[in-house]
Structures are given as C-alpha cells and as structure tokens.
C-alpha cells in the first residue's frame, strides 16, 4: 500500500501496520519491563501475574502514547490494550489482558469515558466474570469542557487517567485489596478536573489529513484527545491569557478547599515543545497560588497525547496524605520512573 506523504508528515511503513510495529518497538526498547503479545494485541508487565497483588489494566485507542502501553510496569499498570489509532480496543484484548495479569486478587479496569471504550470494556468485564475472574471497573471522566448531562455522552476521560494509573498502581503495589484499589481510582477521578486547548488538529493515518483546520492566531478551547474540535474557538492571546482560561475552567469546577495541597499536571498534546510546557507550568503555578492552593506536586510533559496535535491540557488533583504517598511511591515503566 503506497504511503501518500503529502499531508502526512509521518514515519511509517504500511500505515495498516503502524500500531503493531510501534508496539513491537516499545517492547524491544524495554524488554526488562514489558512484553508485547502480538496475537492477543496487548502489552503486559514482564513479571505478570504478580503474586497476591491486585492487577490493573487499561486500554483505548492508540495515538495517545505513552498512554497506556508506556505505563506498564512496577507501580502502575499490569497490562495495556491498544486499539487502532483513536479506535477503542475490542473485548477479546481486555479479556486476554485480564487473564494474563490476574493473580487471584482481582483486576481493576480503568476505563476512559468514551462510548467505544465503555462499551468494549463492559463486554470484556462480562466475559471475565463468566470465567470467574473478579473484575471491577472505574470510568474516568475528569474533563470539565463537556457538561455531564442527559444531553451529552458525559465528560471525557483525559489527564486524570495518568494520575489514577500511577496512584492506584502504587496502592496495588502496597498490598491494598481490590476494594481499596478500586476506591483509590475513584478518589483520584473525583478529586481531579481537566481542561485542554489546542493550536492545531492532528492527522490520523487512516484519515490522511488533519481532522480540522485551525487558522493562525486562533485557539481551540475545551479539546479532547482525539483531534476533534473543542467547545469553541477564540483568538489566541498570550500564554498568561490562555492559562487564565484553563485554570478558571478547572478550579471553578473542582471547588477545592482553601489551602488545599494539589498536584498540577501540565500535559503536552504531542506537538508542543517542552519549552512551552514549562512556561505554561510557571503560569499555572502562579495562578494556583493566587487562588489559595498549594501546588506540592506536579507532572510536566507529554503523557496523554493526541498524535501530533499542538496543545496542552491542565489537570489539577486535590491531594490527600494517602494520594500523595502513592504518587511518591516507586514506579518503573517505559514512560515514568522514580524511586527505583
């Protein structure tokens, strides 16, 4: 199949094999951490199933790397199920992943709130239950840009997914039981809010061109992670002005307690340089302090992306002592590593 590279500035062979070849490369780069089961189409922690530990799996469309395959390893996910680019994985993948990681203590499914993900994970959880595996599912829906109502598909699962995978992963590693690990995921979700903005769309390989065109000098506000347009378009101002919008959107919905300790996660959508992400973080931190919050932890980088979209998202998590402890706990995955 010929690659038309006019609009697709991409490195790939046959576009149909992009995801598989990338996964094989991930596993080749981190053979000590993960293995790629090409038949089942899953990335699994090398030492799975880990004895007596509650296991965590997640998954979703590809195109958001390092989410989720890059987060498989000690202290985070036990397995990841990658679908085609921007397309939910199928139930067979989640069933295979569940079986590969279950050590008898149960498995938590972390599910981002998109109709496809929710439906496919639902079918998989039913299959797993049929096979006698204890599975719990938690839906992540931290995006404030979409109103959660009868008139929408509900809030999207975005930045809090990364935080939940890390924090609940540590909870599981500490020996917590299924109920407590599940509750930890829920707590991270409930205490997090996110808002994203974009300076460009992205080019999914199957589409061959950008999902939408954004004229220069304009910014999309309230974006998701699939390259779709946001809630509205506005004139692009300074970074300070953009961050004003992001922080206001997040904090007005989060309603954190005055003086609360928070984790501020400035995430790159894939096409924005770290130079700009750190600038954004500085602006974010100023405003969080001005709002009476204490940013005691942070994460800055491209961790839940939308291919090459230029943009950034902010996630603020209101911490408590336990969540902070789990955030600080050791993690060793392709994309996050500390304490080990």
């Amino acid at each position, binding site marked *: 199949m010929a690659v038309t590279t006019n609009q697709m500035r991409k490195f790939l062979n046959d576009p149909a094999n992009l995801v598989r070849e990338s996964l094989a490369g991930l596993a080749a780069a981190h053979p000590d951490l993960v293995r790629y089961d090409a038949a089942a189409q899953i990335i699994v922690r090398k030492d799975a199933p880990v004895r007596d530990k509650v296991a965590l799996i997640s998954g979703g469309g590809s195109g958001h790397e390092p989410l989720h395959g890059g987060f498989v390893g000690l202290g985070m996910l036990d397995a990841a199920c990658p679908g085609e680019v921007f397309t939910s994985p199928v139930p067979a993948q989640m069933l295979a992943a569940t079986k590969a990681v279950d050590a008898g203590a149960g498995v938590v499914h972390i599910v981002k709130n998109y109709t496809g993900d929710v*439906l496919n994970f639902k079918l998989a959880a039913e299959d797993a239950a049929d096979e006698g595996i204890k599975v719990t599912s938690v839906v992540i829906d931290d995006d404030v840009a979409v109103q959660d109502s009868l008139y*929408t598909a509900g809030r999207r699962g975005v930045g809090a997914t990364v935080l939940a995978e890390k924090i609940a992963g540590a909870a599981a590693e500490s020996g917590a039981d299924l109920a407590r690990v599940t509750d930890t995921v829920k707590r991270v979700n409930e205490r997090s809010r996110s808002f994203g903005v974009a300076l460009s769309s992205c080019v999914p390989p199957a589409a061959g061109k950008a999902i939408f065109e954004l004229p220069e000098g304009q910014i999309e506000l309230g974006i*998701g992670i699939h390259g779709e347009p946001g809630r509205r378009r506005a004139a692009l101002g300074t970074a300070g002005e953009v961050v004003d919008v992001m922080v206001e959107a997040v904090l007005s919905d989060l309603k954190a307690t005055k003086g609360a300790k928070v984790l501020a996660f400035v995430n790159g959508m894939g096409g924005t340089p770290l130079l700009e992400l750190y600038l954004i973080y500085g602006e974010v931190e100023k405003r969080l302090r001005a709002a009476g919050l204490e940013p005691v932890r942070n994460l800055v980088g491209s961790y839940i992306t939308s291919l090459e979209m230029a943009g950034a998202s902010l996630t603020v998590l209101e911490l408590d002592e336990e969540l902070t402890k789990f955030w600080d706990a050791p993690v060793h995955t392709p994309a996050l590593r500390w304490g080990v």
Partner: protein
Amino acid sequence: MDAATISSWMREIDVAVRAERDHLVQLDAAIGDGDHGTNMTRGFEAVVRALDADAGLPPGKLLMLAGRTLVSTVGGASGPLWGSALRNGGRVLGDQPTFDGRQLVEVLAAALAAVKDLGTAAPGDKTMVDSLEPAVETLRARLEAGSSLDRAMADAAAAAEAGMRATIPMQARKGRASYLGERSVGHQDPGATSTVLIVRALQKAVGQGS
C-alpha cells in the same frame, strides 16, 4: 428468504462501506475523530471472511456470527452496537432455515432494541437510531398494510435516508459528536449514514431473492 439472503446482505454492506469509506471518514472528521469509515470497512471485510469460512449455517446463526465478528474487529462504539444488533436480530430466527417479511421485521426490531439498550440513544440524539428506527417502523407499517416486500423495503430504505438527512440540524447528545455541543449542528451523522448503507444493502439482498 434464507441463509443466502443474509450472506448477500453482508456482502452488499461490505461493498457499500468500502465504496463510501472516505465519505464516512470525512463525515466523522467533521464531528468526531475520522475513523468511522475505516472501522466499518475493517469489520465487514472480516464478516465476509467469516461467512466464507462458515457457509452452512442457517440465517439466524449467520447473523450471530456476523455480530460476533463485528464485536471482535471493529472497535470503537460501532463494534459493540452493530455487533449486538446483529446478534440480537439473529437470535430471533433461531435455527430456522427460512424466514418471511414479517420475521424480517422482528429481526430488525430486535437489532434496533439492542442498539437502543446498549447505547441508550433515543431518536433525536443524532445517531444511527435516527436512521434505523424509521426504517424498522416503515417496514413494519408497509407490510401490515399489505405492501409487497420489495415495495416495503424500498420505503424503509427511503425512510432511513430521510432520517439520516434529519440528523443534519440536530445537536448530538450521544457519542463523540456530543462533545462539540452546538458545533455538531449542521453536520450529517456518520453512524446514521452507514446505517442507510446497511438498510439499502438489505433492500438489494431481499430483492435478489425474489
């Protein structure tokens, strides 16, 4: 009608979605993430392969096989939705080797019920239901009024098309398009569009049998 009708239907869908792949991708790019055409093409290619491998099944079992195949290959929301639709529809026919127009209505009604149950969409939400429900209701009404099956299917397909066009001014309340709020208005829903292809394919398959 019999297993050959179902097999024909699935093959006609495969041809249609492949021909309209880019159009579906384009519709989905406007209010989604541009993967609908690719997903449906992948799914129905797999369905045709599965049907080739399992040729001796009765019509109901063929539908269930098609449904399972869609669930395991399409991904996204369309996989579970169309997968459950065809499985539920297939169950209506059990093991019987032939079926008539009246039973076809029940198959489609069961398919629609599965979609509405799993996806929780109602008419007006700007989804595949906006094409599928008018098609099922029209087919039922025309047959009950004494129309020939061919005539009734033609009217059902026309109703599906009208439903698809009716999604244009709707604001999406389900799926990825709902994240766009008012910006989803003015765009035709890709799911409703592929549903029209599926209903027209059924019209062709039913017509070939008579």
